[in-house]
Structures are given as C-alpha cells and as structure tokens.
C-alpha cells in the first residue's frame, strides 16, 4: 500500500512516496536540529510530524548522541534508520529554519524533493561572520563586567579580552577543536590577559575578579543548561541528564583554564 500525497499548489499531481524517503527526510531534519542545539522534544516532535504526514505507523526516538526512526513500509516490512550524532555546533538559526520547513512540509506547501533540497541549503547555512562574532563577544564581556559591578576602565579591558576570546573561539571551532579544549583555552586566555592588563594598568586592578567574570560569560553553557532543564520537564530524562553533564563539564573546563593560569601566576609571584 502506497501513501499518496497531494501537492497543494497542483492538486492534479499526486506523488507517491516510499516510506524510506520520508524517513530519510525526517532523520535529516532531526540531525540538523540536534546538531545545532535544539531540545530533544522538538527534534522528536519534528521527526514525528514529518513521518506521520505520510507513513503508516512511525515512531522516532532522539537522544543528544543519536537518532532512531522506525516505520512500517508499503509491504508491511519495518524500515529502521539510525543516525549517530557526533559533531555539535550551536546554531539557533538552523533550528528555526528546520522548524519552519517542517511546518510547511506537513501542511503540504512543499514536496519531498523540495524539502530535501531546502534541508541541504539549511545544513550549509553559514554562521555570522567571524568579525561579527568577535565584536559580539567583546560587547558581551564589557556589558557583563559592568553589570557585575566593574568600572569604566575594567569594561574597556573586558572589551579587549572578549575580542581576543572571540578570535580564539572562532579559530579553534573552525579547526574542529573539542569543546573541552576550546573552554580550557578560553579560560586560560581570559586569565592571562587579565593578569597582563592588571600589571599594565593599575586602574583595572581592584576589578580583577569582575573582569574575569564578565569575560567568561560568553563561554558559560547557558544554552546547554536551558536545554537540560527543558528536556527534564518534557520527560526526556536521559537527554536531560547527559546535557546537564555536558554543561557541568563546560563550566569545569572554563574554571580549570582560569585556575591553571592564576595558580601559575601566583607561583611566579604575580598574585593579585
């Protein structure tokens, strides 16, 4: 039994889709969302909507580390696809785009080949240019330093440190460095530059801690933590627990990077 699906823009044209094609679309959509930092509930929901739009009985299952989808095909055979998620790079723009696409597809405004094409475009969606990300990190660092009680001089220092941090993050993510290493390196850069700035500029010295805290804010795992909470509330406890671990690891890595440099600094006599 094939499941006919009409094209809304052209009602005479009826396209029959194989179960496998539909599931490939669902898994590709789920893959892009999960890799870009969507919460588990949204990934499963999107996959399920796409599958239910044209397969008989399909059930997806998503974890932050992998996707599973299974459905009965035309002949009653069970088709199962498994996709292992390895790389992860946070990109909320992709999540929003796949979300729009799945709505359009389920409402019949898109055919399957069109949806596949658009998913390929979404997957290749660029990040903001490196210079803009650097500027954003610089501004974020400076603003948070002020919010936590730093004076004008310390905000200026944080602005520069944030810029350097942006350079480090864009460069190392471009090279595919693991998150832990990016965070340890980021922490070390923050501590090193803060030590340097406080030695050069006496005005920044009393705000030593504010500068470090403000500058580390662009690195804190806010998105991972939010997603962990959301997974738990949706009942995806396995995803929630693993994301919470991920967030804790990030926080520990940042602290380790800062701590290592400050300890070395204290050992060599640069204690503040």
């Amino acid at each position: 039994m094939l499941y006919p699906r009409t094209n809304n823009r052209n009602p005479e044209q009826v396209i029959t889709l194989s179960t496998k094609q539909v599931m490939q679309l669902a898994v590709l959509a789920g893959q892009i969302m999960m890799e870009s930092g969507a919460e588990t509930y949204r990934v499963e929901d999107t996959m399920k909507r796409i599958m239910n739009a044209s397969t008989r009985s399909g059930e997806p299952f998503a974890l932050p580390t992998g996707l599973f989808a299974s459905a009965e095909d035309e002949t009653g055979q069970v088709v199962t696809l498994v996709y292992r998620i390895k790389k992860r790079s946070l990109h909320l723009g992709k999540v929003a785009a796949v979300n729009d696409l799945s709505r359009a597809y389920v409402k019949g405004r898109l055919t399957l080949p069109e949806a596949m094409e658009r998913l390929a475009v979404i997957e290749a969606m660029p990040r903001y240019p490196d210079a803009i990300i650097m500027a954003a990190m610089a501004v974020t660092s400076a603003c948070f330093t002020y919010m936590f009680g730093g004076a004008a001089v310390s905000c200026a220092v944080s602005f520069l440190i944030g810029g350097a941090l942006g350079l480090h993050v864009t460069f190392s993510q471009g090279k595919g460095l693991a998150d832990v290493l990016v965070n340890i390196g980021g922490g070390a850069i923050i501590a090193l530059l803060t030590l340097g700035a406080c030695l050069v500029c006496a005005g920044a010295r009393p705000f030593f801690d504010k500068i470090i805290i403000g500058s580390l804010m662009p690195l804190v795992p806010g998105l991972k933590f939010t997603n962990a909470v959301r997974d738990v509330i949706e009942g995806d406890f396995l995803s929630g627990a693993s994301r919470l671990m991920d967030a804790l690891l990030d926080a520990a890595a940042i602290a380790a990077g800062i701590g290592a440099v400050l300890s070395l600094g204290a050992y060599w006599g640069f204690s503040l």
Partner: protein
Amino acid sequence: MSVVIQFFMAFFGALGFSIVFNAPRGELLVCGLAGGAGWTLYILLVQVGVPSFFSAFIATAAVTLASRTLANLRRMPLTVFLVSGIIPFVPGAGIYYTMYYTITGDTAAASLKGIETFKMAGVIGVGIMLVLALPGEFFAWRK
C-alpha cells in the same frame, strides 16, 4: 538612571550572546530585549529589598513566560528567546569564585561558593520549569 544603564548593558550583553549562538537576524533585537527586561526586573526587585535568589527566581519565571508568548507570536523556537533572557542569571561569578577559593586553598569559602553556584542554577531551573509546566493551550491562542 542607573537602572536605565543596567537595562542597556543587559540588552547589549544578551544581544551579543544571541549572535554567538547564531540566532536568526530578525530576532536579535527581541533577544536583547528579553535579556534587558529580565535583568532590569531583577535589579528593581533587589532594590525593593527582595532577597537576591528569590528575585532571580521571579525574573527567570517572568522571562520564561515572556519567551513562551514571544515564541508563539513570532513562530520561533522558544530556546531563541529563553537563552538570551536567562543568560544574565547564569552563575558565571559562582563558577569563578568557587575556582578561585579552591586554588587559594580556602576550602570553606570554596564549598560555600560552590553550593551558592548550584543554588543559583537550581533557582533558574525551577523558574523555567514552573512556567514550562503550564499547559500549552495557555499560549496556543495564535493558530
């Protein structure tokens, strides 16, 4: 006046953060607004004399409520607004002080700050959860 400055600082801080996470271009200002409004509410509550943890709880709950409404209004994933809204409350300071007292050998202060960090994370978590647990029909008025 200082509240206005704090608002703009949180606004640009959250806006920068949403750029780092590649939020869609059209939503960046709204993301900044979520961060600015949440932080301003927190500052005002603290000034009125509400304990800081409870202020943070109310502010995160308010941010989550606003994010759910915005997500519905602008047809966007909730995460986009929620992350920028709660970022000022993420205990970056707690992470730093815990680490600082650990390496300086002040174990008592380190465990105090460590517990405060987890307390803050828990407060944010409960603030988000409380509003997310509300039934979706409250927010599904736009079909």
